């Protein structure tokens, strides 16, 4: 097992993980140890904001595992993120205890408001952190397993899969809006007080949450790297590039895909769980199909099928979003929309992918070696096909 992870640490992965770990140590220190007036001080707001970006980055890394390396374009990853978030939100809700507006020691405020007398069965156990932590992984994982098992077994692929994942998150959106679902309906879960006994608003807790997000992201990179560098990862990439051929060679693509899908969903769940305490609310809006598509664009901007591309993409796009929505809110959707179009037309490899491609091309030319040394991790993009080859099997699909 240790071998499995050690082999994952190539130069790119080690650098990324190291950078994230340094970030996890330095940012909290800059927030807590420096006086508020000093030039080095980072406000708690900034720390929380970037903590949120890191959870988005983890979500993009999760999507990259299935889309970048396995070719499954999931338009429903927001659902796994939100489910993880709800699991954490339920724990935080139970922690409020009798400090709610209605002062009910057992029932969260919204249930008292709806005149409920007893706690629904699925809310039991969420007063323990360990239980909530398991659920953060289990619920998205289980949904991904059931959904993926049906979908991959019946060979639903390509855009069909994308559309039914979108329908999945849409159905969840509608369900979570209902009050009788028992998850706070429209308003969701909010007004959290503390986590593991620490005040959720305090600077120290915020810093620790940031550090936890950075460490989780580093773990996400490690797991992705470990998977794609293992033998299983080779099959994963083979399934992406030529599914039928892989099947004829005797592998079971549906199992390969299912594993990646479930691991990815669990990662997304963790991202959601870290996201909720930092923003202080989880509501059904997180299930909106538009959110899930935005994850795709983060990954695409940074570069799919690259280790750190999704992280770069998530940070850049979200920083841009914060900037534009504060500065010229009208403009943001134009920018985001333009980004979708521009990236697919002009930058299909994404930023990191293009850089890496250019770099390796340069090195190859310098070595003037004609040997083919293409790395597995890079998606095989079709050349700019003329419209005439429209109905050929699409390599990028």
């Amino acid at each position, binding site marked *: 097992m240790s071998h499995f992870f050690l082999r994952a640490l190539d130069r790119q992965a080690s650098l990324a993980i190291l950078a994230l770990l340094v970030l996890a140590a330095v940012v909290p220190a800059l927030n807590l140890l420096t006086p508020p007036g000093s030039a080095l001080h980072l406000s708690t707001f900034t720390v929380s904001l970037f903590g949120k970006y890191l959870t988005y980055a983890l979500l993009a890394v999760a999507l990259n595992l299935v889309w970048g390396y396995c070719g499954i374009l999931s338009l429903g990853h927001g659902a796994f993120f939100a489910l993880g978030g709800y699991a954490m939100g339920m724990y935080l809700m139970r922690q409020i205890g009798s400090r709610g507006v209605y002062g009910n020691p057992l029932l969260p405020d919204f249930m008292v408001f709806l005149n409920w007398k007893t706690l629904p069965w699925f809310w039991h156990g969420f007063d323990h952190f360990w239980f909530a932590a398991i659920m953060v992984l289990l619920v998205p994982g289980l949904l991904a397993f059931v959904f993926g098992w049906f979908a991959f077994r019946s060979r639903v692929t390509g855009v069909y899969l994308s559309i039914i994942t979108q329908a999945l998150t849409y*159905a969840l959106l509608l369900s979570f809006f209902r009050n009788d679902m028992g998850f706070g309906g429209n308003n969701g879960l909010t007004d959290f007080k503390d986590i593991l006994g620490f005040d959720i608003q305090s600077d120290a807790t915020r810093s620790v949450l940031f550090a936890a997000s950075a460490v989780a992201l580093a773990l996400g990179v490690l797991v992705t790297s470990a998977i794609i560098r293992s033998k299983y990862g080779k099959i994963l990439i083979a399934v992406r590039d030529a599914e039928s051929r892989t099947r004829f060679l005797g592998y079971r693509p549906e199992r390969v895909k299912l594993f990646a899908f479930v691991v990815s969903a669990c990662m997304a769940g963790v991202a959601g769980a870290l996201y909720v305490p930092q923003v202080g609310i989880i509501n059904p809006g997180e299930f909106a199909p538009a959110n899930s598509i935005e994850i795709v664009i983060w990954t695409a901007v940074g570069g799919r099928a690259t280790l750190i591309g999704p992280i770069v993409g998530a940070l850049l796009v979200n920083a841009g979003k914060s900037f534009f929505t504060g500065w010229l809110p009208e403009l943001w959707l134009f920018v985001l929309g333009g980004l979708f179009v521009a990236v*697919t037309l002009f930058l299909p490899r994404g930023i990191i992918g293009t850089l890496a491609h250019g770099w390796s091309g340069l090195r190859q030319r310098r070595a003037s070696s004609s040997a083919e040394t293409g790395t597995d991790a890079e998606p095989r993009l079709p050349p700019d096909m003329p419209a005439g080859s429209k109905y050929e099997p699409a390599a990028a*699909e």
Partner: protein
Amino acid sequence: MTPITRIVLLLGLVLVLGGRLFSPAQAATDLAPLVAALGQGGYDQTEQAVNAITATGDSRAAPVIQALGDGDLYARKSDKSVVIARRKGSDLALTDPITGADLGTAKSSELEKVRVNNKLRRVVRSAIGTLTLMSPDRNTRLSAANAVFQARDADALEILDTAIAKETDAQVRDAMENARAAAILNSQHPEAEKIEAVQRIAALGNDDALKVLNAVQSSAQGDLRTAAAKAIAGIQRDLAFWNAGQNVLYGLSLGSVLLLAAIGLAITFGVMGVINMAHGEMVMLGAYTTYVVQEAIRTSAPGLFDYSLAIALPLAFIVAGAIGLVIERTIIRWLYGRPLETLLATWGLSLILQQAVRSIFGPNNRQVGAPAWMSGAFDVDHLTITYSRLWILVFALAVFVLLNVLLRATSFGLQMRAVTQNRRMAASMGIRTPWVDAFTFALGSGVAGIAGVALSQIDNVSPNLGQSYIIDSFMVVVFGGVGNLWGTLVGALSLGVLNKFLEPYAGAVLAKILVLVLIILFIQKRPRGLFALKGRAVEQ
């Protein structure tokens, strides 16, 4: 009916008819002492006064009795005269109960309300029924007959008989006969007559009849009870049938909306294989075109308003089609063979189009009016059908037929199908495939635009209009099967009907969720949809 009551009723009739001939002042003098008697106090005295007024049969007394029932009848403390008083500011505005003349205002302390209890209310109801049954106005008589039916007042039987004998309007007479049957069930008439009445009411077959029969069933014995029970079972069966009919109708209506929204997509996605996430925005553009056309008509040529939709249709087709053409030429043609990238790029386009419309027209809903021929509704037996829903159904089917003709019977359709089936062969035969692509995409977008014209009639015209249809449209196309317009038709209508049948049991939101889950499961079972393409075309 005894001869004596007949004579009394005839006298009453003469009074009623005679009353018409007198001048209002004289009628007022006739009614005045009776009306004044209403203000004497005690419930019993009031009841006697009401009965006395009823006996005159003067339909002008009806508003007085109505006012009494509504609690608007007061006695003035100073002179004990009876007035109708309605609140006006802090005071009460007074009117003369008989002539309707304005008597100024008074403080509420100067008046004493003529009080009513439940027994008196019943008397009042039947009195109004009786008085209005003789009204010269057809609609008043009709609603009076219905009121008696509701009240099931046995005392009204005599006046009903008179009214029926005099009635010339078949529909009103029918309503009166029904009222009479209901009243008989509440009277001391022989059982045979009652059973006959039960059968008459059973023939009505609506909820009101059910109410009457249920009352009979719970109070009666023997044959009458059995007859009532049988009639109830029959009505419930009928109602269930009509209910199902209603669901089918609403389902078809929803299905036609889905069909309109999805049929353009069936061309771009189904025939060309292009995932157009901006499809909903084409629908939205069509709806906004309608809005702009109507605004222009309002300001410059209000007389043309009824033709606004007819003018908007070609314009919406051109606007959405032209934008579709531009999108295909600038973006989509670079992405053929990369469906997932197409999906992302068109999603980005949808964001841009939404924001553009929001910047130009503002984020709020825009008001799109309905021309006269699209408003209103009509009844078919127990079903109510609104014209707008009916026209949309007709319109959706017309669009479907036209598109099928276009695909099957024109040279453009032939080229389109040729390119779909074998692109290289089609190109070798001299078909300019890039242009076929471009115009097919423009056609799909244009059809979405005209769908927007229709949907502007039943939905809010806002920048988010398209968003609400895009997932449903994809569901319809995927469910119906790609590459087949018939699949889209069957898919849309069956999803609509399924949705409406689930709604009564599960509620609107849960029904939608259930339908989504069912489609997801269905796609697992038949990944290529209801009407799957067979043969070589499958492995694309």
